[in-house]
């Protein structure tokens, strides 16, 4: 379930994204090899919040790729009730309309 800490962190992320944090939105993870490469980078370089957002390519709006909308809302890692990304390398509160390049269904 959503917590106050989630809400605080979600606001911080929203602020970073709205403030112009440049994230690696493209290229999207086209295949599993690219997914694994990004996840590996998250494991080795994603030490703080900003680097996680950058490497995963977070946006505060939905990205469409290969004719598919890729919102957090439909992603396998998204916990709807908590509004939370459950990917072990991220584990971040998010908003349903946000997006990242590790999106998968």
């Amino acid at each position, binding site marked *: 379930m959503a917590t106050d800490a989630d809400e605080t962190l979600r606001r911080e992320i929203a602020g970073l994204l709205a403030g112009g944090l440049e994230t690696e939105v493209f290229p999207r993870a086209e295949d*599993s090899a690219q997914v*694994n490469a990004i996840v590996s980078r998250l494991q080795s370089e994603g030490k703080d919040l900003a680097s996680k957002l950058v490497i995963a390519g977070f946006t505060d709006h939905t990205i469409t790729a290969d004719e598919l909308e890729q919102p957090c809302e439909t992603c396998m890692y998204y916990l709807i009730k908590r509004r939370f990304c459950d990917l072990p390398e991220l584990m971040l509160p998010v908003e349903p309309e946000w997006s990242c390049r590790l999106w998968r269904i």
Partner: protein
Amino acid sequence: MANLLWLQGGACSGNTMSFLNAEEPSACDLVTDFGINVLWHPSLGLELGENVKVMMEKCLSGEIPLDIFVFEGSVINAPNGTGEWNRFCGRPMKDWVADLSAKAQFVVAIGDCATWGGIPATAPNPSESEGLQFLKRAKGGALGEGFTSQAGLPVINIPGCPAHPDWVTQILVAVATGRAGDLTLDEFHRPKTFFSSFTQTGCTRNMHFAYKVSTTAFGQRKGCLYYDLGCRGPMTHSPCNRILWNRVSSKTRAGMPCLGCTEPEFPFFDLAPGTVFKTQTVMGVPKDLPLGVDRTGYVKLTAAAKGAAPAWAEEDIFVV
């Protein structure tokens, strides 16, 4: 009384170990209750050396009727098609297999290696391994596509790595008691009674599959293993969640993704790095979708199911 001969080719003995753990019926029940006479088995046979060879020659001459020939392990053809890498009783095993299969009333292939080559036949297949009537999905194998045993059936394939012990003993009982005619086989010669449903059928994680909640790491009780951890349960024909292992559990119930070991392509993706225990995707969509589901339908279903997921689906829940 039905005479049974069991030989091993390119095998790890895993199917023998599985067979010896059978419970319904057990390996002993086959002998005491169902009239199966085990002529020889690598782990159970009393004969050694020349005596085994003499016994097999008697099978070939017809002096000993060979009712059921069971083969475990791949048929090894290396080097250069000679089969010399796997000699048994003075000649290549592949020659024994060909000759004994021609004499047997029924031929039963146990495990992936004997059915379609299995792990030994994975590229680059240095042992030139193949199954009795298949090499992966391709028909043919060591005995050829048109082979039928004396009783008129093709090789009865009981795949798995290993095959479940009760699949083995129940099929042997059916054959030994004259009920082979009741067996219907699928396109890969698997008995339909076991291999029509999916590994997912009966999986205790089905509710997480339905609501599209993923297991994201090993050991989690919540979530479906298909979405992230490479589980092949929705695409694999097996009764692993109907006929439980050790009568207790299954891979998926214990949190272990199904590897699809009853399908001809096993091991999938030739075990390339990054393909084991990881769902392969194309632009975020699984490369292998549940059988019969198309990409568009899958995307629509996912969005709807995800939106309808109840809170409990996202929480730890006991599924074993």
